[in-house]
């Protein structure tokens, strides 16, 4: 084989560059998302009734789909009332329902979204609640 070493070196460089991202982050685990649900609005609810629109597991896995359905319900069907599995009624609105309780976008939404590397564009239009500086919670 002619120029075997050139080819091998070239290959090694190529593979090295190609897998650069893995080398760079090797051994550095991304911090596990820390989701906070200690907003004033949530704290106002007494412990046993402290529930989201649907149960925790459903919200974790399916909130994006729920929000998608809500958009079509409110905009297309003009139906702004959601009845959950428990039979309770909620106003269909990201800003007026979801974000009223979860008023801490940075400590709530962004935590997992950043971890999983997704950047939903909800807040390009929907206004996120003003976050009060820490230690000033009332």
């Amino acid at each position: 084989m002619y120029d075997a070493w050139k080819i091998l070196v070239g290959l090694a460089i190529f593979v090295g560059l190609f897998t650069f991202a893995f080398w760079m982050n090797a051994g550095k685990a991304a911090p596990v998302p820390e989701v906070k649900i200690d907003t004033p609005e949530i704290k106002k609810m007494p412990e046993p009734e402290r529930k989201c629109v649907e149960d925790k597991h459903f919200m974790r896995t399916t909130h994006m789909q729920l929000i998608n359905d809500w958009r079509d319900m409110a905009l297309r069907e003009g139906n702004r009332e959601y009845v959950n599995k428990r039979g309770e009624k909620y106003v269909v609105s990201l800003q007026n329902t979801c974000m009223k309780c979860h008023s801490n976008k940075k400590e709530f939404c962004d935590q997992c979204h950043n971890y999983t590397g997704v950047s939903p564009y909800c807040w390009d239009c929907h206004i996120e609640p003003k976050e009060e500086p820490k230690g000033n919670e009332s």
Partner: protein
Amino acid sequence: MLGLPHRTERRAKRERVMSMNRRQFIKIAGLSTLFGLGGKGAFEILRPGMLDAAEHGHGAPALEEPAEPAIRWGMTIDVEKCAEPGVVDKCIKACHSVHNVPDFGDSKDQVKWLWQDDYEHTFAGNENQYMADHVKEFPFLCLCNHCDEPPCVRVCPTKATFRRPDGVVAMDYHRCIGCRFCMAACPFGARSFNWLDPRDALNEKEYNMEFPTRGRGVVEKCNFCVERLAKGLMPACVEAAPQALAFGNLADPDSNVRQILRKRPSMRRKLELGSEPSVFYLV
């Protein structure tokens, strides 16, 4: 050969099921060609109703006339009352602040849901030549007419703009791709394009936190305050000037707007285009 009985059986079964089998079809087609008939017409003459039944399935009911809608939201604008000082500005301000409509202070980038224009422009093309002088001087409040036959909806390639069953021509900004076909189609200039990020021109402290803003690159317009209607409230402009504006159900002969329209002469914009505006100007 072995499969034959099965095949025959199957065919016989199919023939029983189908309204017109292949044999009948070819017979009719051949016969009609002989007699110089052709196409669908032949079937209508030789086997009336048969083809339709085959096309639409058995006993398919004829298309029904769509029922009269129960609700068609509409508005009346008392032009004379709008001439009172401050009324027009108050309405515009109410609308634009509830809906986070930005003010770039520049007509090139202007975004507007509700605005003021003069008689000549509002009724361009069919202005009455010798209209009373005082009418010509009135300020006319303009907004999306929530047309009954909205041209903007017909041209939208993504169904981002659509007509709700209650007559409101609504927008789904999530779907708008900013092609601006609708702006070209709307004869009333009711739509604005977001050339810039609206948040640049909005004061964060004055946001209405209950309503979104729009993003750059979408078209926007008046939504007849659907978010307020859903809560049983009147549109923001009507609330700001109830003496001049009225809002109600045009489909109900006893509604407030219909009662007003029975008593007062009114005009609508560019009726000759057939878009059937739901906004009436009382003169």
